[in-house]
């Protein structure tokens, strides 16, 4: 970020003349501007107050990661890569990896136009500040260009703050320029009809307690539908694994909302949509499973001694091959008339569900309905969890896991109805339990599936014996880990079900509804 940012009314030439009368300027570069702002689809860099910019400086690529206050955190003299792991080892990769994880870096705004850069020198001919004249153009995806107002940027240099201030005073005083508070990044996005952070998979609706449940539920479902559609293009082009993940979460949340609040919307339609969303869940499973195996691949290798890790590589190729096939299948489903019909019908239904008056809960205030449903599912979590002992079969843990997900989704849908700190604490406590259950279930399934994959690899032929051996060792490792995770369950559950949390749940969900026993 520059020290100061001014939109220019007068022409560049006369302003330059005025500057030269007071300061020593040296031309640093003249020419075209070519820069690209990058971020992940879910704005992870923006959320962390960072900007990643790829610039073309006279044919040489340069990439800078800066804090929004302008501090340079890391840079490289190469073009941007798609994934953090594609970057060469170094500070840029180190900074990006924990933030963007498995997400792809996508261009969020491309800028062209003209740029003239001048150094402001002191009497030692040392650069003490820089000024940049920009006549930027934002480029949209279809290569249409939109000119932004010309501007002047003042860049300060570390240790030379008084010099930058003197320059700014001159520009704002005798030259009469007015500071602009929005930056190039925000303006470029605005020109593209976007704003930073305009996508998030998180849900939080500003619901009011007295809102009729039917309306509140539609609001929730509409947002989930928006999320689902926003991720569809990313799924179809397989940009990264998280588009499908977010797509599936939106589907699962929709299904939970429809099932858990079934007396709110007209039953007949809800029944039909539940069937269609179940279908959507099932057609997206195989591709997601393979995504997960590929994301877990480095972890799988970690289960093996270093000398055996390379033996797993053919397994990765197998996964990649199948992942491609499953994605192709999925894309066909998403282009099918069944999916298109679901989208159209669902959109219409969310606009005009009709018959809310005839449902049992549609016109009731949402806080009552939410209290009742959350309290009910919470008690189910307790009941199922308390019934699990050291000998309980995996299926019981899986059942509890599913119930926990429903509990979590319901709390998230309706979190705005409860004090933020309380609901946040409960969600966090539940997350601790869910992490354990999720890890257990994943390991359980992986142990079984890896056996199946081994057989399929043999059937497909050409699998080295070392790879099958390594897979066998991996299964042993996962098995051991599964036992450890299972051991941890009782402690995790006890922590979640402790009296303090129970009291909180009673206070939040039980007291207000007269219908609750």
């Amino acid at each position, binding site marked *: 970020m520059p020290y100061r940012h001014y939109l220019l009314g007068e022409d560049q030439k006369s302003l330059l003349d005025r500057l030269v009368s007071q300061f020593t300027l040296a031309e640093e570069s003249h020419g075209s501007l070519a820069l690209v702002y990058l971020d992940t689809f879910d704005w992870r860099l923006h959320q962390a107050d960072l900007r990643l910019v790829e610039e073309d400086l006279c044919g040489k690529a340069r990439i800078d990661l800066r804090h929004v206050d302008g501090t340079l955190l890391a840079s490289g003299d190469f073009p941007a890569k798609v994934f953090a792991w594609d970057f060469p080892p170094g500070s840029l990769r180190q900074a990006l990896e924990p933030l963007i994880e498995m997400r792809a870096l996508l261009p969020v705004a491309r800028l062209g136009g003209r740029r003239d850069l001048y150094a402001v020198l002191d009497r030692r001919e*040392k650069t003490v500040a820089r000024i940049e004249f920009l006549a930027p153009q934002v480029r949209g995806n279809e290569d249409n260009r939109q000119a932004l107002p010309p501007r002047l940027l003042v860049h300060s240099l*570390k240790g030379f703050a008084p010099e930058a201030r003197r320059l700014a005073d001159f520009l704002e005083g005798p030259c009469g320029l007015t500071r602009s508070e929005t930056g190039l990044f925000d303006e470029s996005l605005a020109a593209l009809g976007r704003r930073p952070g305009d996508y998030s998979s998180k849900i939080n609706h500003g619901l009011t307690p007295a809102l009729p449940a039917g309306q509140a539920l539609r609001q929730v479902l509409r947002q989930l539908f928006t999320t689902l559609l926003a991720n569809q293009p990313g799924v179809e082009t397989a940009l990264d694994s998280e588009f499908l993940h977010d797509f599936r979460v939106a589907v699962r949340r929709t299904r939970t909302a429809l099932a858990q609040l079934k007396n709110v919307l007209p039953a007949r339609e809800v029944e039909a949509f539940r069937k269609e969303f179940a279908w959507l869940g099932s057609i997206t499973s195989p591709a997601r499973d393979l995504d997960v195996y590929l994301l877990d691949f480095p972890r799988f290798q970690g289960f093996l001694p270093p000398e055996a890790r390379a033996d797993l590589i053919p397994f990765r190729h197998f996964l990649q091959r199948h992942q491609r096939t499953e994605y192709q299948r999925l894309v066909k489903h998403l282009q099918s008339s069944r999916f298109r019909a679901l989208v159209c019908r669902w959109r219409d239904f969310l606009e005009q569900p009709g018959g809310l008056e005839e449902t049992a809960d549609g016109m009731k205030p949402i806080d009552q309905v939410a209290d009742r449903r959350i309290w009910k599912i919470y008690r189910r979590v307790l009941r199922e969890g308390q019934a699990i002992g050291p000998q309980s079969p995996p299926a019981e843990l899986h059942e509890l896991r599913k119930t926990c997900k429903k509990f979590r989704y319901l709390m998230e849908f309706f979190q705005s109805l409860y004090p933020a700190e309380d609901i946040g604490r409960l969600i966090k406590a539940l997350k601790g339990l869910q992490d354990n259950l999720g890890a257990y279930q994943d390991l359980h399934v992986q142990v079984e599936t890896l056996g199946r994959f081994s057989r399929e690899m043999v059937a497909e032929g050409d699998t080295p014996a070392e790879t099958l051996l390594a897979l066998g060792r991996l299964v042993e490792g996962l098995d051991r880990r599964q036992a450890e995770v299972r051991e941890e369950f009782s402690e995790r559950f006890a922590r979640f079900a402790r009296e303090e949390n129970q009291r909180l749940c009673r206070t939040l969900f039980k007291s207000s509804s007269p219908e609750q026993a």
Partner: protein
Amino acid sequence: MKVLASYNIKGGVGKTAAAVNLAWLSARGGHRTLVWDLDPQGAATYYFRVKAKVKGGGRGLVSGRRALDDLIKATDFANLDLLPADFSYRSLDLLLEQEKKPTRRLRKILKPLAEHYDVLLLDCPPSISLVSEAVFFAADALLVPVIPTTLSLRTLDQLFDFRARQQLDDLAILPFFSMVDRRKGLHREIVEQLPAQRVEMLKTPIPYASEVERMGLEKAPLGRFAARCGAAAAFESLWDEVAARLNIGNP
């Protein structure tokens, strides 16, 4: 953060030229780099066109009353900052002596910089003193320019002995030939034979070149005004060696 010190007991061996040019290359390679000009003569500071003055002087720095970060100046180059020299650095020995554990002091002062920089290059004054001892404790590696003469090699031996006596096993000593004049028979002979006998020696010799002398006139690193000259290319390959030896850029 990797701490490198350009150091030699003797003066006039190309220490500052090495510190400035290697720092420039480090910065160009994307590493956030800081040069601390510890030499009161302030040659590195001069090359970067910065005034050789530090608020509070050496005393403020050593006592920890002044935060290092507030005294740092950006150079004209991206990723490359400078902590300027100050005339008071000539009595840095005395100032260190007043502190508890004087040899560990510098290391402590540098610690907070690790958050902002990947590479720190100390341009050290020529001597063996408390300051150099403190540098040895703070640095990961000493870059030692050596003019290929018998006497220079003797001082290099003294340095290795010193490291052994102080049990500074983690300190890498990376000597390299500096100001090599290919017209001189002795230079040629030593440059050709010595690296085979000393494994720690870096392979790239830096030639004696008029462009390096011109750094004083141009007040800039070679890359700025003579990027294509032989000496610039030599520094580039020397930097590649240093980065590879010290695993810079491979966390």
